[in-house]
């Protein structure tokens, strides 16, 4: 077998072993690859920066499942750190059935982190005052539209079965008029419906945190201004983590930022494999032509 034929017949298990090794390597040999922040990430960051403290609330819709947790969970955590540190009230909801578990995990993690560092009650993040989680709702289009009139009619109780009127935050936030932006952290086409229904009818600002697979098809929404920002995949999460770190909203590096080192090396490895595969292919074709 000629050398170029061997290149086209590399056992796939060799590729799997190399991929595994190069994913694990950066965890033990830490190094820093500079992160370039994309305009759409900065747009979202700047929008949240412009929201005054304790004024309008931010809706974060936790619409992802454990299968996309590595990409979407760091986004949700970074957004929560930013909002809580800026004292922007957060209302959490989910339309993805597997979202609630991850939503509660993110909210608990970040609120606990903030409260450990809190010097007094006024520094603390308190459930019911600074954030609420309303839970999962079926019939999402109907729910999204009804929230434009009254959030309490859609969610008479929150995820923890507290009556909605017993929560101080929900006595101030009645409908979309008191919402600065809705950020949809999603692994499916939920952001489309936010743009088509609440934004079209009530003028709600919408932004999205999406898996990398979905990101390309949502660039048109950025370009038209229908999205006020977008986080794309683990890179988007890493960029947002970098921004909140640089601006002093956290002193902890995020998971996505450490994962991006592995991401960069794997991409280089895949480029090398593609080059090897193409070299093997073109030489094989040339050899057949000569024969």
């Amino acid at each position: 077998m000629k050398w170029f034929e061997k290149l086209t017949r590399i056992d796939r298990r060799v590729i799997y072993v190399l991929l595994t090794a190069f994913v694990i390597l950066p965890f033990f040999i830490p190094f820093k690859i500079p992160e370039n922040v994309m305009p759409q990430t900065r747009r979202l960051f700047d929008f949240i920066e412009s929201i005054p403290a304790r004024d309008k609330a931010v809706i974060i819709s936790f619409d992802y499942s454990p299968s996309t947790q590595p990409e979407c969970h760091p986004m949700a955590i970074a957004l929560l750190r930013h909002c809580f540190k800026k004292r922007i009230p957060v209302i959490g909801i989910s339309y993805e059935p597997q979202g609630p578990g991850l939503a509660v995990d993110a909210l608990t993690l970040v609120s606990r982190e903030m409260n450990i560092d809190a010097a007094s009650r006024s520094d603390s993040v308190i459930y019911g005052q600074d954030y609420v989680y309303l839970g999962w709702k079926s019939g999402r289009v109907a729910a999204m539209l009804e929230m434009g009139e009254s959030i309490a009619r859609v969610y008479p109780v929150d995820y923890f079965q507290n009556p909605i009127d017993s929560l101080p935050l929900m006595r101030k936030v009645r409908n979309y008029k008191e919402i600065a932006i809705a950020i949809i952290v999603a692994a499916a086409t939920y952001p489309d419906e936010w743009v088509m229904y609440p934004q079209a009818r009530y003028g709600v600002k919408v932004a999205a945190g999406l898996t990398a697979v979905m990101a390309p098809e949502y660039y048109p929404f950025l370009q038209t201004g229908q999205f006020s920002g977008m986080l794309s995949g683990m890179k988007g999460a890493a960029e947002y983590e970098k921004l909140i770190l640089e601006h002093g909203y956290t002193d902890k590096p995020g998971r996505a930022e450490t994962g991006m080192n592995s991401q960069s090396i794997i991409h280089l490895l895949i480029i090398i494999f593609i080059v090897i595969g193409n070299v093997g292919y073109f030489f094989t074709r040339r050899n057949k032509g000569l024969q």
Partner: protein
Amino acid sequence: MSPNPWIWIAAFLTLGIFSFLFKDNPVYRFSEHLFVGVANGYYIALYWHNTLRPNLVEPLAQGQFIYFVPLLLGLMYFAKFIPKISWLVRIPIGFVIGWGAGISIPANFQARILRQIEGTVVTPSSFANPWQGIWAAVIFIGVVATVIYFYFSREHKGILKPVSRLGIIFIMIGFGASFGYTIMARVSLLIGRFQFLLGPWLGLIK
């Protein structure tokens, strides 16, 4: 290493799924079937507790008999399994399609067609920032060329030929970007799994 048995179970199932990369085996089959079974059970429980019971069973129990209408429509779906009355399934399907078309067609037109056309049109204000103007022109040319490529009512001769060729280039660039993003997504999930195995399970990384 974690003392939590659930972490150990998750790690075992993760490695069980990964074992398929070597070859198909009973551990992989068990992990896969367990996942499908648990997912189905979770969804059934969730829809019962969060949708059927509060929105149908409880209102009916309280005497709101109008809810017999959606109950009947839902039950008609199961007529599909009885050949003699399988035609009844067309009624709820027609209702859902009618509602779906009514609510989604105007919204899609507004958000995904008209606003996108508006965003594509190049005006003098697009050139307020020179670079923005150049990209606006590129997007406009790309959209027109791509749409012309998909115009099959005439043979691509004359002016249509080079424009559709340009459209192919834009399409291929788009596919390339999609491919790159897809690789990033899949690798992210792999990284997430290894972060779990090396962190919460083995305790080798923070």
